């Protein structure tokens, strides 16, 4: 006998929509016998899901204790694709078995929600614990041993991700058995996320990242790189650095307390950006006027500066500072200095000085020739946000010698090899379309009872 409240309960639990009608009836018959079902009796719901998810976590902890952190290098190609596809096939086969309670549980919300909760808990711990990379410290503490300090490669985390991908897979397969095209947003979001997690998770092992330091003007191309353990490796790829350019913003002026070095006003320090359009300002009780600004200056024998565009030149400004209260006037040169020249403050009183800050980098770029193993040679300009791609390698501008700045004798590059990247982008693309759909779909399914 089907009574209304059982039906309502079932539909509220989403069972009706996740199961085909015959299964739904069987499930319902089971439920009619007793109102509250004891744990472990099918269909599994929240209690079972929470228990199993906790079990997954404990297994992860055990593996972590016995094996140490998870080594992604163990799942490099083709292991990752085998494990990934096997779990996918497993889910599909399971879905073909008729009336499999296990599959319905695997594809239903309670398990997904429990897994997401476990992910949240682990990432919160991760967000509160400073993460370290590389080797385990000499004397690991409890956090190290449990994997909290390298969360993303701890066994519990990896296992949680693994099962999340399986649950996500099951949810999609389940819906695809009887596709409802009105639920396009569901498919886009879940398939996009699945593709992304699959490529990013399983692909993580295949990614290689190295840093290469190349000397400016060296005729012999560089092919040695460092990995994250600082081992030197040879690559089938070489880079010749023809030129390195660095553009800087104009520096800023500030008035600091001479002893503490703190800029005034203390509660909201003012840094005045030197700008050809704005040459006057006031900070606190002081009026400041910039008479002359030289971006590349060298100090003369006295305290003045002269324009000399050469390595070792630094910015300098000729300024007048007037105290608003006593009309005292101070004029002189200030400079932030660099690796070759001392900085030059303008002393105002016993307590205060006017100083110039070191300029910030605006753009830095490397003019390179890239030579591949096949003998191909290409010229390129590589800068931040503008990497260069050659044969599955992406070459990124990484750094330079910040002490010498413009005069840096080298430029460093990050070389990233990521064969899965296109799949990652495909996932991101599908997922983004799904996210747009979130704007108008709303939670408008009228499957829910209005009130309990």
């Amino acid at each position, binding site marked *: 006998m089907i009574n209304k409240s059982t039906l309502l309960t079932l539909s*509220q*639990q*989403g069972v009706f929509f996740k199961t085909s009608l015959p299964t739904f009836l069987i499930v319902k018959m089971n439920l009619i016998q007793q109102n509250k079902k004891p744990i472990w009796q099918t269909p599994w719901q929240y209690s079972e899901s929470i228990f199993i998810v906790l079990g997954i976590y404990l297994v992860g902890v055990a593996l972590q204790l016995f094996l140490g952190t998870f080594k992604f290098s163990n799942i490099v190609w083709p292991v990752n694709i085998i494990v990934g596809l096997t779990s996918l096939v497993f889910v599909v086969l399971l879905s073909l078995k008729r009336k499999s309670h296990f599959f319905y549980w695997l594809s239903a*919300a309670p398990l*997904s*929600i429990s897994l*997401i909760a476990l*992910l*949240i808990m682990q*990432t*919160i711990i*991760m*967000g509160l*614990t*400073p*993460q370290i990379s590389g080797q385990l410290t000499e004397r690991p503490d409890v956090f190290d041993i449990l994997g909290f300090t390298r*969360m*993303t490669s701890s066994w519990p985390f990896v296992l949680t991700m693994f099962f999340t991908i399986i649950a996500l897979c099951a949810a999609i397969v389940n819906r695809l058995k009887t596709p409802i095209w009105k639920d396009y947003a569901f498919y886009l979001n879940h398939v996009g996320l699945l593709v992304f997690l699959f490529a*990013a998770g399983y692909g993580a092992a295949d990614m290689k*990242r190295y840093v290469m330091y190349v000397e400016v003007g060296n005729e012999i191309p560089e092919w040695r790189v460092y990995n994250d353990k600082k081992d030197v490796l040879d690559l089938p790829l070489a880079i010749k650095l023809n030129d390195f350019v660095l553009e800087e*913003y104009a520096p800023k002026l500030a008035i600091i307390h001479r002893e503490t070095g703190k800029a005034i006003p203390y509660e*909201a*320090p*003012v*840094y005045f*950006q030197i700008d050809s359009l704005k040459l006057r300002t006031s900070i606190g009780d002081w009026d400041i006027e910039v008479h002359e600004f030289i971006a590349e200056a060298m100090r003369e024998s006295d305290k003045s500066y002269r324009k000399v565009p050469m390595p070792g030149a630094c910015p300098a400004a000729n300024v007048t500072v007037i105290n608003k209260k006593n009309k005292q006037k101070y004029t002189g040169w200030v400079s932030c200095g660099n690796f070759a020249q001392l900085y030059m403050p303008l002393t105002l009183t016993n307590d205060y000085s006017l100083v110039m800050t070191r300029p*910030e*980098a*605006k*753009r*830095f770029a490397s003019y390179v020739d890239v030579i591949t193993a096949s003998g191909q040679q290409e010229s390129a300009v590589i800068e*931040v*946000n*503008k*990497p260069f791609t050659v044969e599955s390698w*992406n070459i*990124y501008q990484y750094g330079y010698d910040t002490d010498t700045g413009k005069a840096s004798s080298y430029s460093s590059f*990050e070389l*990233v090899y990521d064969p899965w*990247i296109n799949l*990652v*982008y495909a996932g*991101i693309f599908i*997922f*983004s379309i799904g*996210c*747009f*759909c*979130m*704007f108008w*779909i*709303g*939670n*408008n*399914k009228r499957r*829910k*009872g*209005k*009130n*309990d």
Partner: protein
Amino acid sequence: MINWNNFLVFAIPTILSWVLASVIFTFSKKNKLGLFFSIFGLFIFGSFIVLLWVNLGRPPMRTMGETRLLYSFFLVATGLLSYLKWRYKWLVSYSLVMAMVFVFINILKPEIHSKNLMPALQSIWFVPHVTAYILSYSILGAATIVGVKQLFQFNKKEDAELMDFTDNLVYIGFGLLMLGMLMGAVWAKAAWGHYWSWDPKETWAFITAAAYLFYIHLRLSNKYRKIALWYLVFAFIMLMITWKGVNYLPSAKNSIHVYTD
């Protein structure tokens, strides 16, 4: 030229018209007048943002003070838009009050602004990435307000329509949150060579996203409404930690996302 020194000139008329609007919405039936004053305030406030943008020569999205400006703006804009669809007067008042709190913070604790963008930030993804996030934060903020209201009246007169409204706001906010995150990932790939590197801000952004994902899936069944509503408050706390709190965490010392003040 408009800079932060002129903020008061814009903030005071904004606050006056928003206070007026809240009073009208709360105590009278002259909704059109309330709407007028809200929009008028929003217009003045928006002008400041635009002029500041012009003067800075870059979108005002880099520092805490600047993101607070946008937050106030979009909070009121969201409140007004949802009023046009759902006719909840109290929501407009709440969003006005919330927005004013942020305006006051900016008056009392304005933050100094560097005009310079470091090279990694000079990207076409910068503006859409930050806009999507700020917009989503405002909408999820609104969702939290609606959720808390529902929670307070839960045992007396639970409102199914309000519950749907909460869900819809979360859906929209979450969509924007994910778009912001995905654009950030594409950008990070171009700037740093990897789309996701579990930087502390990224870790907390993941937590926030997962928290709202949890809510969305919990709400697929109508069974656990009260838990879901409490949970929404928790999710918003996670969001606030991502937005404001990360800077103070010991785990975030080297984060690339920490705002420069």
